[in-house]
């Protein structure tokens, strides 16, 4: 509880120093045997990385910088390696989250069966958007990909427990039960107060898997766009597009067209 956390990915935890009364140090001592058991399940200790992160997150409510450092220590890996793995997976929350993680499916079968209404209802009732936590720290809200329950769309998970065939009235009832402490799903551990979002700054929250997606059709018109990786490919591969782009580029930049077919071949 009293551990001062630094920026995501940089931990202040030291395996050689035990600080009495410090939450994480005590948690580490408590979980160490279980971590070692996990390591023993695999031929290569690194396979225990994800299971160990699940274990720490279960107790801390998120995958803290200290947890990453502890995992790095237990697996004898550089912290950056642990960070690189953990940052790939959407179910590891890098910053504190609410006591109830509400994850509503936004994929195909749910979308064509009323998920938009459910999502709008959640946003309205909670007053937060995708990847945000309510100010009271009770709810975190995320719109997620297919949860493999398409026959009972729209569906969602609350702290990874399924809820099916959602209606706005059901949503209201569930939110009331969570607020009133009568909801049958156990709240997540909450060892620190959550902020507005649990995504780290470098991560826009749009990519589960490290992709960047830098090129942007809203800000690209053709060959003049330096971010347009795809556009560049198109100019190379699509003569009709190349001609149009060239015309526009000429118009815009008042350059003269080069002869032949653009000099891209």
């Amino acid at each position, binding site marked *: 509880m009293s551990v001062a956390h630094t920026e995501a990915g940089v931990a202040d935890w030291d395996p050689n120093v035990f600080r009495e009364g410090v939450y994480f140090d005590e948690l580490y001592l408590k979980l160490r045997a279980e971590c070692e058991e996990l390591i023993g399940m695999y031929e290569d200790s690194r396979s225990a990385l994800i299971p160990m992160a699940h274990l720490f997150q279960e107790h801390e409510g998120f995958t803290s910088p200290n947890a990453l450092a502890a995992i790095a220590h237990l*697996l004898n890996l550089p912290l950056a390696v642990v960070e690189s793995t953990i940052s790939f997976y959407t179910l590891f929350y890098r910053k504190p989250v609410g006591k109830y993680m509400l994850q509503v499916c936004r994929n195909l079968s749910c979308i064509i069966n009323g998920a938009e209404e459910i999502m709008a209802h959640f946003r309205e009732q909670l007053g937060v958007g995708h990847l945000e936590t309510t100010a009271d720290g009770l709810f975190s809200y995320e719109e997620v990909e297919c949860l493999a329950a398409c026959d*009972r769309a729209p569906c969602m998970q609350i702290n990874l427990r399924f809820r099916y065939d959602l209606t706005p009235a059901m949503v209201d009832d569930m939110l009331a039960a969570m607020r009133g402490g009568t909801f049958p799903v156990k709240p997540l551990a909450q060892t620190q107060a959550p902020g507005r979002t649990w995504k780290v700054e470098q991560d826009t929250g749009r990519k589960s898997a490290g*992709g960047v997606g830098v090129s942007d*059709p*809203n800000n690209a018109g053709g060959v003049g766009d330096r971010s347009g990786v795809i556009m560049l490919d198109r100019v190379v591969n699509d003569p009709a597009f190349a001609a149009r782009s060239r015309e526009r580029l000429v118009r815009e930049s008042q350059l003269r067209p080069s002869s032949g077919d653009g000099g891209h071949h």
Partner: protein
Amino acid sequence: MASPVVEILTKGIGELNLRDIDVYRSTGGYVQLERAVKELGQKAVADECTGSNLRGRGGAGFPTGRKWSFLPNNGRPRYIVCNCDEAEPGTFKDHMLLEQTPHQIIEGILIAAYAIGCHHAFIYIRGEFQDGFEIMRDAARQAREAGIIGKGIFGSDYDLEFTIHRGAGAYICGEETGLLNSLEGKRGEPRLKPPFPAIKGLYGEPTVVNNVETLAYLPHILKHGAAWFASVGPERSPGYKVVSISGHVKKPGNYEVPLGITIRQLIDECAGGLRDGRTFLGVQPGGGSSACLFEEHLDLSYDFDTIAKAGSMLGSGAMVVFDDTTDFVKASFALIRFYAHESCGQCTPCREGGSWIEKTLARIIDGRGVPSDIDVMKSACHQITGLNLCALGDSIEPFLGSVLDRFEGQFRAYIERATPVPERVAV
């Protein structure tokens, strides 16, 4: 009309508590594993699998026996990993099998492990399946106590460890080499192939990765014989399959059927047909990665080869049915956003292409589309497929491409309603 639905993997689901090992055993459970280990021997089990022509039920449809046959006899340890990372949009069969019949999955994994001579088997369960993970953990504990997992199973000299591994949210870990990286504690980024996992898989050793449903059929193939399975349905695509049907049908759900019945039968006779007063517009036959099929395809045989010939794929066997209320612009957006979100980012065409189309579709839905967006999307589609390390990139385009061809009017309507904004040129 006789229902085409059969009960093989799905037998007892909803009636019996098959999570209890005693209940499972009372239905003949673990008998085939014991028979394999004590009577049949390794080669006979592998031969039965090959002879059944069982093709992978996870998406690629690769013949299971042949996959096993690629393992080199190099004296190295070998591994089997059951792929329970089910996340293909529209697919919910493994979810059901995991929660309802965990012992059947364990028996399938163990039979396969024995057939390939492996001593450490894994199941990789998608991180979201918390319930399924706990159910499987409990089932494995029961099996271990019964002497079915561990040293000298069924009193034989065959030892087998079984490890349940939970993922943490990433569709790409369903790709077999992404899965292996994830199981090794790494980012779930697919590997360059070759070498295929059969040669260099988990920890660099020969490895087989098979889908849950594929493995769950093994006890039944041993029980009834390879010929029983091979004789059902089309010769090159035989056997039974659990088909997940969702979307605009009266009775969405999992239906186990013989391959080779028609798409129309699946929709009408299994899933109760369309909702009243609605007309059919299309069906995605094999998960989010498959191209949409239409009215003229309804009488096609539902099997790997026929659906592929029609320009789509059987994939994971997940059908999403669309009636005339469907907004195909939003439907496409939901899928494209998914692929853009789940791209691991290694390959530029997939990473940038998916994201580019997603942003274009978002702009169209937002009322800021321009007529050239349609051509831009078609063009971008053609520059993603076939250019990536794994099949995720190839999965971005098929659905959008097929509905853009058929329902271009829906996309144009959005654009015509839009307040046109001047196209910007960034220099």
